[in-house]
């Protein structure tokens, strides 16, 4: 038996004291008044003639005494809020580690209107109060507070916590822990140690969710008056309710609604839809679903970003850059401008391509260089290699897919700048391609030009340019959308902004930076003068199905009258008993 309101020994003392005081008060109450009667002759005759009456009196008194004690103990139980959870054989938890499941399925609302998370917090408080010392941890944030016996501190930590959806972090551990309590709804399967006591806050709930939402590039139309289809949005909506319901699905792009319709979905049915995204314009897509039986809100919205909605602005700087024009002209997502080096001005373009020329100071925006001169500039001293042999394809995203065997290079340069990192080298070690990835700059440097190689005609040229453009303009490259939770970013990212525009704090660990993406939405990552948008969605058919659980627990917290209902039942029983006692006392049935 454990108690939510106080430690076990305090609860037992309270219960015993309540019973003893009630019995004492009952006996005081029973000290009868003295009444002088002329004679006891008649009373003696009555009592002698009615032994069953006197026996009944004794029974009544015993029952009344028992009822009084039970009443007091019930009230005591209502105050101490007992729970028959696992591990309750002991009177306290000693030093306890309380781990809260931070899955966003914990945000599901229960029948009483509170969320599973609310129940988890209440259970955590109860355990903390029943423990000598407690530490608070979540599956997303790791250890949050403690171990400490300061319940105020623990309560403050619990108040700060919110589910973040992260479930990939390492299981927290605290030395000297006697009991580990995992409070979960069982939505996510986790291998647990045998000594972990699972407290389930699960309660079956209906839900409607976006289980998948993404955009994939598509180039359709665009000629003869047909609208240019840039991408296709793929949406999948599922009804996780045990009964059919009408689900309203609406897809909007920016502030305009693309489609909205209402469909009747059967129990467990999934609805899939592909919507063409045509024409340039707003890149933000928002899918929203509504249904009458919908306990979880976080998976009702999904976001996507159509990169091609806005053409990439590229400025080519070079005296003879026709060979670049040819490859860029084939890309409908690029808007290209050309200037001679003498006319170069940074004009806010997304990307600049320098052909055999480099400005005196490196530009703020991402840049792709072909054989830039290094002498005396910020690239440092230059050293040439003739006929370099590029044999090994690199693994960096910029050179991925480029076949070096099709390239013939007459001359390659190496630069002395320490900011540059070679990602492809010749047999003799001369860098073929450099990248610079820093918070200040983002650049790709190809150490040979078209005039010194067969680059303009090589099959790998468009791949190299495409890769470079993609890498340079997307500092936080990510395939598809991310899930809410802890996300890692490269050190070149200087800022991640939440959907509301606020900057997220970074945590640096093991050469990477981490930020907690707590809510679904479109996040913006900036670094090296580039900016990329990350769609964060909770869409997951496994986690949106909140009607099932994997937790096999000895107790369910707050469900069906095991935790909070315990004290409600106690209080109600005490009230009913008091009413019954009052009623019977009025009728002289009890004393």
């Amino acid at each position, binding site marked *: 038996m454990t108690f939510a309101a106080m430690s076990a020994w305090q609860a037992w003392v309270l219960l015993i004291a309540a019973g003893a005081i009630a019995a004492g008060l009952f006996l005081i109450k029973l000290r009868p*008044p003295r009444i002088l*009667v*002329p*004679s006891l002759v008649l*009373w003696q005759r009555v009592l002698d003639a009615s032994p069953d009456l006197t026996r009944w009196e004794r029974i009544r008194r015993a029952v009344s005494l028992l009822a009084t004690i039970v009443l007091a103990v019930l009230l005591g139980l209502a105050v101490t809020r007992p729970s028959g959870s696992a591990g309750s054989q002991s009177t306290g938890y000693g030093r306890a580690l309380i781990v809260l499941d931070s899955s966003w399925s914990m945000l599901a609302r229960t029948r009483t209107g509170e969320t599973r998370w609310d129940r988890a917090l209440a259970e955590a408080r109860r355990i903390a109060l029943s423990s000598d010392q407690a530490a608070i941890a979540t599956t997303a944030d790791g250890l949050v507070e403690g171990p400490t016996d300061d319940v105020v501190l623990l309560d403050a930590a619990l108040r700060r916590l919110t589910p973040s959806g992260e479930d990939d972090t390492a299981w927290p551990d605290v030395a000297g822990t006697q009991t580990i309590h995992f409070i979960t709804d069982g939505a996510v399967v986790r291998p647990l140690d045998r000594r972990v006591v699972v407290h389930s806050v699960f309660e079956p709930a209906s839900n409607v969710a976006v289980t998948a939402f993404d955009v994939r590039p598509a180039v359709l139309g665009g000629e003869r008056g047909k609208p240019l289809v840039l991408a296709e949005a793929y949406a999948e909506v599922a009804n996780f309710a045990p009964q059919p319901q009408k689900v309203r699905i609406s897809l909007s792009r920016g502030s305009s609604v693309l489609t909205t319709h209402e469909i009747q979905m059967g129990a467990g049915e999934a609805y899939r839809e592909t919507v063409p995204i045509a024409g340039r314009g707003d890149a933000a897509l928002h899918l929203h679903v509504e249904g009458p039986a919908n306990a979880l809100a976080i998976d009702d919205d999904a976001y996507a970003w159509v990169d091609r909605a806005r053409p990439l602005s590229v400025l080519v700087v070079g005296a003879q850059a026709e060979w670049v024009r040819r490859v860029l002209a084939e890309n409908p997502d690029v808007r290209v401008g050309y200037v001679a080096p003498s006319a170069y001005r940074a004009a806010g373009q997304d990307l600049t391509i320098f052909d055999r020329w480099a400005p005196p100071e490196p530009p703020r925006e991402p840049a792709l260089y072909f054989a830039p001169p290094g002498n005396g500039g910020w690239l440092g001293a230059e050293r040439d290699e003739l006929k370099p042999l590029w044999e090994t394809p690199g693994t960096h995203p910029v050179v991925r897919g480029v076949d070096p065997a099709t390239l013939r290079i007459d001359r390659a340069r190496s630069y002395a700048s320490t900011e540059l990192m070679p990602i492809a080298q010749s047999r003799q070690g001369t860098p073929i391609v450099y990248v610079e990835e820093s918070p200040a700059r983002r650049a790709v440097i190809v150490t040979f030009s078209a005039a010194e190689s067969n680059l303009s005609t090589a099959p790998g040229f468009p791949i190299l340019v495409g890769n470079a453009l993609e890498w340079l303009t997307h500092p936080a490259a990510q395939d598809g959308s991310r899930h809410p939770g802890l996300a890692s970013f490269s050190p070149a990212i200087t800022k991640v902004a939440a959907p509301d525009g606020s900057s997220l704090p970074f945590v640096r660990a093991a050469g990477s930076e981490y930020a907690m993406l707590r809510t679904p939405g479109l996040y913006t990552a900036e670094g090296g003068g580039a900016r990329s948008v990350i769609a964060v969605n909770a869409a997951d058919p496994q986690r949106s199905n909140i009607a099932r659980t994997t937790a096999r627990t000895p107790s369910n917290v707050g469900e069906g009258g095991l935790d909070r209902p315990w004290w409600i039942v106690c209080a109600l029983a005490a009230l009913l008993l008091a009413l019954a006692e009052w009623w019977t006392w009025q009728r*002289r049935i009890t004393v």
Partner: protein
Amino acid sequence: MPLRFDNDFLKKLEYLHVVSKRALAGQNRADRLSPKRGRGLEFADHRPYSAGDDYRHIDWKAYQRLNRLLLRLFDEERDLSIYLMLDVSQSMAEPAKFDMARRIAAALCYIGLVHLDRLTIIPFGSGLRHESSPGRGKGKIFRVFDALEQLETSGPTDLRESCKAFASRPRQLGLVVIISDFLDPGGFEHGLKILRTLGHDVFAVQITSERDRDPGVYGLVRFVDSETGTLREVEVTPRLASAYVKASQAHAESLAHFCGRYDIGYVRADAERPFEDVVLRTFRQGRFLA
């Protein structure tokens, strides 16, 4: 509370007689018929003349008709000895109850004094206490009042011992009136039997109060016997209270039944009833007064 009756009530009392079921011989001449033949006014019988008889009582008319000397006999009117045994045990201490008992005694005394009866007031508890005889004539009523007012309740009730003590002294046969609640742990039967055996005309006046008939309280109480101080803890429930009421009624009925069986007059006087009503109506209905 002083015992005083107003004049109207006294006048009403003067018209009443204490009824004795038998004619008992008194000591003094009075206005009550006695079994003796003597100088009364009422002709009773003839008997043959014998030497020494007062020849003034010879019925000469009968001698003329029958040629025999017959003596005319008259009923002699004597007084009646009335013994008022008043229970002064602690069980009578309830003011209403004791007051009713003393007032009944006073009224009976006044009726007796008016009719020149011989009165003896005998208080009793566990035994007889100081008895008093006020004398004859209604002028002695104030002595009666004084004597009754000086009585105080104390001690237990023992009717048997009291009647034994009453019988231990030679007394003129008369009317014994016992005014009591008859709440005697030893029972009332033996005492009444003793009085009846002595040949007295016995009359029982049972004084009861509301407290005797109904417990009047509910819940757990500790009853204290006023006579013995004995404690008894009782949970008075409606059932038990009802049983007590029935026991009280059974007690009164058994007393009435016993009195009827042994030719003892019985009247119950509830302390809460108006005193005049008790005397003028109840006692007359009980054929105790006429």
